[in-house]
């Protein structure tokens, strides 16, 4: 900071203000030069595609031959497509399992770490490391560990006298196993966010409650958890949006199988657009997803406003 020029000229004579104004007139051109790359790329590759997608969703398009206008047929077909409703069910089940579990475990570990004990830094690192591992690497790693024939997981079960499991190859186990893998990588994120929020809870507040005779559980219920409410709403929004958009892990591990038991909605979209060459149909299902995400976002934004309003 010390090597910066001291702002003596700001309160200087009026001619400096005139100079300021003169320089401002040439500024618009400069500003446009600064923003135009960002504007071109961001608007060009989002607003244009959104409209294009909408038009596409009313067409039959195989990405090769010219497309044909079909009106709302794609949406009508979606409503009757059993694969689409299965994908919806799978996605909702995945989200309903993953989001609360990742937040609860993250909160529990954050509460355990938010005290003066040894190795706090080491623990935090170990919990958080899986978060930076790509979904691809996670998928390859767990396909290996959970391999029904050669995997380490079944070897451990064997030692414990438990029969071998199918894991990702078993239609009734595959989705919960995917949730477990996501918990391995996603819990650290919730933990780190909760831990930072816990450290922001004013120590004076806690001490005051303690002096008033609050026990540990009362302290948690009446002081700590209410203070965490805004962060909880944020995490709920974030984790829900993330898990509704799961794709990479499914592609790497199960490719939607076995028997469609792990086909999530984004996998369905990808399959329709890029494997089955029914891009219009894919675009329509993407629109359904986007509208659902938008609604969830709006509802949670509303809740968040109210929570913040209440705590402020």
């Amino acid at each position, binding site marked *: 900071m010390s090597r*910066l020029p001291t702002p003596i000229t*700001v309160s200087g004579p009026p001619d400096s203000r005139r100079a300021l104004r003169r320089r401002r007139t040439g500024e618009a051109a400069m500003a446009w030069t600064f923003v135009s790359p960002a504007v071109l790329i961001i608007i060009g*590759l989002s607003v244009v595609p959104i409209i294009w*997608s909408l038009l596409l969703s009313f067409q039959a398009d195989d990405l090769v031959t010219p497309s044909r206008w079909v009106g709302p047929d794609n949406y009508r077909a979606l409503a009757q497509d059993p694969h689409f409703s299965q994908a919806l069910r799978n996605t909702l089940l995945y989200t309903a399992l993953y989001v609360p579990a990742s937040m609860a475990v993250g909160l529990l570990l954050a509460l355990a770490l938010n005290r003066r004990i040894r190795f706090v830094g080491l623990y935090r690192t170990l919990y958080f490391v899986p978060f*930076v591992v790509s979904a691809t690497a996670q998928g390859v790693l767990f396909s290996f560990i959970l391999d029904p024939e050669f995997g380490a997981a079944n070897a451990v079960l064997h030692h414990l006298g438990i029969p071998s499991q199918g894991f990702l190859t078993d239609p009734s186990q595959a989705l919960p196993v995917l949730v477990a893998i996501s918990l391995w990588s996603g819990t650290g994120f919730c933990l780190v966010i909760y831990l930072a929020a816990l450290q922001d809870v004013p120590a004076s507040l806690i001490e005051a409650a303690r002096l008033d005779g609050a026990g540990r559980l009362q302290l948690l219920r009446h002081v700590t958890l209410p203070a965490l409410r805004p962060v909880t709403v944020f995490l709920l929004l974030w984790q829900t949006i993330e898990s509704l958009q799961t794709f990479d892990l499914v592609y790497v591990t199960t490719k939607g199988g076995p028997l469609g038991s792990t086909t999530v909605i*984004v996998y369905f979209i990808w399959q329709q657009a890029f494997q089955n060459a029914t891009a219009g149909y894919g675009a329509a299902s993407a629109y359904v997803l986007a509208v659902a995400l938008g609604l969830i976002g709006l509802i949670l934004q509303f809740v968040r406003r109210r929570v913040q309003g209440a705590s402020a």
Partner: protein
Amino acid sequence: MTTVSAPPGAAQAASSAPRPDTRRRHPRLPFSPWHLLLAPTALLFAVPLIWVALSSVMSNAEINRFPPALWPSHLDLGGYRYVLGNAMFPRWFANSFVVSLVTVTANLVLGTLGGYAFARMRFAGSRLLLGLMLATMAIPFQLTMIPTFLVMRQLGLIDTLGALIVPSLVTPFSVFLLRQFFLSLPRELEEAAWIDGCSRLHVLWRIVLPLSRPALSTVAVLTFLSTWNDLTWPLIAINHDTQYTLQLGLTTFQGQHHTQWAAVMAGNVITVLPVLLAFLGAQKAFIQSITSTGLKG
């Protein structure tokens, strides 16, 4: 630290005085009982990664017998030799590196220029543009991926690294995060230099950027993480294996070499290691980036 207004000694008195304590006294452990929860869970989080590293130096015979060996009998680098020699991992690594490097650099440069203009410069339509840009952050990628594919094909970029770079040259997140940071800097510093006749670029380079390290590193860290780890877009935009990124290469390689687990795990280590080293090297910046964007949301 807690009893600021109390006289010295009062804190100790308070803590030694009998207070309504509902806690039962446990037989004393030589460590905090919380470790009984924390240590096993930490092990659970660490074991899969340790297992990858161990398996990558085992022989396929050791891995493929049942039950598999839990510790390599000797250091077998066959997996790495195969992955680095016969397979295309070096090529894929270079592709990922180029894509990440260009994307991060472009986001820093274009995000700074855009963010600075939105924070400090006056021009017609700036409010509208900023609002529009912010709104695009809420658009899920799935909605834009099909038309983006068509645009990239029109540009002749499909099956080139360009298709991976162009759509993420600058993200609304980079622009917005840097704008917010620039707004938090004291304006006087810049105006003084500006009145003294420095150009905007000069002010930006000499005064603003040196103060903006934390925001720039947040943008760099998060852009690198999402670019390096992405699978969806490379899967759509790339067909030919010479243009694969590491993530795309790894999953394809696994599909083709299903029983050569040592090699697959060696490939996995190579894919994860750069991010892991970056994380361990700059852990503080990493976690701060994530919590600051998370807490301010």
